[in-house]
């Protein structure tokens, strides 16, 4: 124990890095300890096949909080976000449905399928914009606890009540509907064209163990509508160089503020003396002292693995054990000799700069969910496909491409457990399904990486492979995330904090939890 640190941050994921950057910016001596050889957690870019770079896990940016981009001056550190231009849904009848960056084009496109929906589309977009704005202040606040009796919490509740009241009854009711309804039911009130409803409702199931008809999925839909780049809502983007660049930019900002970032430094345990955090011990046996320790890992690891349970109240342990992860998504990364040629939009065109969504109908998504409910991966999965090399040509050798395929459902709890054979069968199901829409795909594949939730858990440490560090279900949000009373980034151990997306406001490459935890720590110390 040679060097004196003010703060140790466990885990170099984007939240850990954001947390470290804010603390270092405030003058703290901060050490970040990352288990893997690269920083970034699930936001990393890696060369899986020579010459082909992938955003291995998370692959688009939008939820990253604008105040973080601004306050940490991330563009100066290499962050460069390019907008995602379009979303195309190929349809089984050979047609397609597209949403383009240009709203007039989109309107005309939707009109082709349903004049009614073309009108509703713009109005729906406006409502979502207002709803996302209404929720925004809630994302930026440390949640007050309605079950607590302290003055601070009561004041917080009154402030929260006052805020909700200020939205007006109508907005509040809309918000309540979004919190409680299924995305399919919610969209039924707006649209009539099946593939449009399906493609929209797909954002309500991403990362969750729910189908589009499951109540609660409308909230996840909104969560994804909160995507905001440079203050423009619902702007999704690619990061130049892949999502690892986001992490690199935050890391570079943290270093510039004076933080030290160590990789290949897995933490075994948090040291606790007399109910106070005093440092950490690494797998190597090395002990490092610090009065403040912050965990960027998920709640299960933060409470059940990094500290001994005798240090924690039973009430909290029970809540953490009941906190649900249930990873439901997988990822397939492809190195391609040529781009897939979609039969619905033949040739290579601007549509390859956007996303393709395999979501032809709500029934299709529900059937995919049914497979997962009963313990297998979807034979015909939902997919969100992007070709990052179309935006940033450096990601693949000249003339060649990379494809990033987000796949659902691949349940962590699969009957009999995940095996190599099952992983490949899952990969085959993905390729076979996609080939129905782009017949040249199979022959174009040079390399294929298939990641199941079990792989995600093993590689980046997300429990059960849940990309949000815990389901975004109502009973796991706000003051219940990850546990009532401990949703304020503090833990029962003094000096020990949590800053991962197991805390409010949850997942996505958002950084909000890391920032709010830093503000909490700075207020406490």
């Amino acid at each position, binding site marked *: 124990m040679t060097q004196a640190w003010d703060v140790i941050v466990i885990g170099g994921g984007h939240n850990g890095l954001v947390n470290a950057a804010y603390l270092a910016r405030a003058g703290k001596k901060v050490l970040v300890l990352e288990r893997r050889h690269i920083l970034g957690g699930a936001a990393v870019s890696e060369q899986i096949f020579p010459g082909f770079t992938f955003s291995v896990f998370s692959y688009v940016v939008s939820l990253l909080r604008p105040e973080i981009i601004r306050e940490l001056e991330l563009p100066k550190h290499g962050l460069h976000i390019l907008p995602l231009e379009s979303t195309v849904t190929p349809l089984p009848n050979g047609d397609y449905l597209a949403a383009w960056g240009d709203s007039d084009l989109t309107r005309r496109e939707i009109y082709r399928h349903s004049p009614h929906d073309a009108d509703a589309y713009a109005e729906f977009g406006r409502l979502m914009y207002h709803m996302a704005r209404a929720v925004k202040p809630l994302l930026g606040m440390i949640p007050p606890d*309605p*079950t607590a009796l302290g003055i601070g919490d009561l004041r917080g509740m009154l402030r929260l009540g006052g805020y*909700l*009241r200020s*939205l*007006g*009854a*109508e907005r*509040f*009711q809309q918000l*309540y*509907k979004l919190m*409680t*309804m*299924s995305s399919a*039911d919610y969209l*039924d*009130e707006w649209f009539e064209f099946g593939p449009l409803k399906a493609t929209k409702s797909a954002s309500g199931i991403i990362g969750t163990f*729910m189908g589009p*008809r*499951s*109540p*609660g999925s409308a909230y996840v839909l909104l969560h994804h509508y909160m995507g905001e780049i440079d203050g423009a809502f619902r702007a999704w983007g690619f990061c130049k160089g892949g999502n690892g660049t986001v992490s690199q930019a935050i890391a570079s900002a943290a270093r510039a503020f004076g933080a030290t970032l160590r990789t290949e430094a897995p933490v075994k345990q948090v040291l606790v003396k007399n109910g106070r955090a005093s440092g950490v011990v690494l797998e190597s046996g090395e002990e490092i002292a610090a009065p403040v320790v912050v965990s960027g890992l998920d709640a299960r690891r933060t409470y059940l693995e990094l500290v001994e349970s005798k240090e924690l109240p039973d*009430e909290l342990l029970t*809540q953490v054990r*009941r906190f*649900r992860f249930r990873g439901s998504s997988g990822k397939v990364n492809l190195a391609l000799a040529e781009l897939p040629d979609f039969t619905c939009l033949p040739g290579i065109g601007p549509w390859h700069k956007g996303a393709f969504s395999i979501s032809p109908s709500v*029934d299709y998504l*529900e059937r995919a969910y*049914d497979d997962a*409910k*009963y313990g297998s991966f979807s034979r015909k999965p939902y997919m969100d496909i992007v070709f990052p090399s179309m935006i940033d040509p450096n990601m693949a050798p000249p003339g060649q491409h990379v494809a990033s395929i987000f796949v659902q459902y691949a349940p962590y709890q699969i009957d009999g457990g995940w095996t190599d054979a099952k992983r490949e069968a899952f990969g085959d199901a993905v390729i076979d399904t996609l080939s129905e829409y782009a017949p040249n795909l199979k022959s174009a594949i040079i390399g294929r990486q298939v990641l199941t939730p079990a792989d995600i858990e093993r590689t980046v440490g997300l429990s059960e492979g849940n990309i949000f560090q815990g389901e975004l*279900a*109502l*009973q796991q949000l706000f*003051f*219940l995330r990850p546990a*009532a*009373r401990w949703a304020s980034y503090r833990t029962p151990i003094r000096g020990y904090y949590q800053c991962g997306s197991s805390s409010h406001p949850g997942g996505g490459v958002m950084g909000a939890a890391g920032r709010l935890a830093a503000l909490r720590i700075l207020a406490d110390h």
Partner: protein
Amino acid sequence: MARTFDSIIVGGDPDALVAAIRLAQRGSRVLLVEANAELGGAFREIEFAPGFRAAPLAHDVGHLSLDIIGLLGARPEAQPVSDPAVISLSHDAPLLLRSSIAETAAGLSAFSQYDSQNWPAFAERMTQLAGFLAELYRMPAPRIDFDTAKEVIGLAGLGRKFRALGRTGMIELLRTLPMALGDLLDDWFESDRLKGTLAALGVMDVCQGPIAGGTAYTLLHRHVGAAPGVFSERLRLVGGPATLVSMLADKARAAGVTIETNAAATRVIVREGRVAGLALASGEEIAARTVVSSLDPYRSLLELLDPVHLDPELMHAVRHIRFRGVATKILVALDALPPVPGVSAPPTGAVLIAPSVRHVERAYDATKYGRGSEEPFIEVRFPSVAEPRLAPAGKHVAVVHVQFTPYTLREGRWDRIREKIIADRAFAIIERHVPGFTARVSARAVLSPATLAARFGLREGALSQGELMLDQILFMRPVPQLSRYATPIPGYFLCGAGMHPGPGIVGQSGLLASRAALAG
């Protein structure tokens, strides 16, 4: 308009009767019109075979709040809680949920020691949370834009009751309400059968499977007013649900209410922007300044009113209320009671065939694709055991609840043939679990959601008159603009199961609507 009243109540169910009584007691001259030959609404009995009667939609009267008991003036005579309350059958030993928590726990040890240990705490917790709902259900749903001192006082009172739950109780309440029932049960138990049994009881009449968010709430809602540890029945009256209807009807007549049956309302008459009366199918127009409808909100708004009186946004919202009836009821005439495994005495409680959460969830899946379930979950009750008058001497009646059979079919429509297929399927499943059942059947009547809709005036065959999911309860029930029992037409008010606090909290919405009507 030859006849004139102060108020007209449309509908003859307990909510309508309660509203009529309250208005009459406050000096209003009240007419109550019921489209059917008999009062009772969903409590109505029908004679489905000569000498065999049953109330297909009510095995109990649900929960009577202190307010309603006060209005009745006396607590009606109740049957004891069925013991066992539930006989849950599968291919192996029956699981019994008893009226006593300790006995249930003892019996559960044959299935799981863990579940046996957890049962008392689970029962206690559910009673505590349902107790909070019972308080919440006594007043109009709290809303965010409260503006009167009375509402603030009501909210403060509710806040105190919330605090009284204690720290753990408060956390459990907030956490449980939005949860999936399957998750809640996983938190407490490990036996598939026990979880399947409770899952089936929780999703009764709801178009959701038990792993959908919000279904923990539906279990709690149905638990309001039930005995601790009993999830299958609430207040069962001597004489059946009909007893409550006749008590209320007597009370209404005594208060001066004029009751007319076979009198279907066709239109609420609006003049100069407010209610002027009611038109009946007979062609008669009756003048009144107040009309209270206990029909479902869709019919009350979109069928009884001329659409020119409603703004398009409200109409849009009402059109999107989800009803989604999912249950088929089969009324069965039996020559004798079949022997039910697990019990020696004739059962007054529920016989349930729902072996696991997965089974119930799979049964639900079919509805997503507009089909009836191949392997539905089934509940059988024998109401004639407690009420011998329902069947000729020595014979019995069974009411079979089959779920899921959606009102809206993707292909084709409900007809006799489809009803026969559903019933044959259900009987085959019952026969596997209660051998000898089919041999004793002498007659049956199959009531699909479509038939229930036609015979009981329930939209889409939904007993709830508006699905009881989180987005359609409290200040959202039936839609926010109508949640205070008043409509945009002065003088026109709503009550019934479609309004807060919803189905099974009998008479309460009638009471709350009458308060709104009296306030103007």
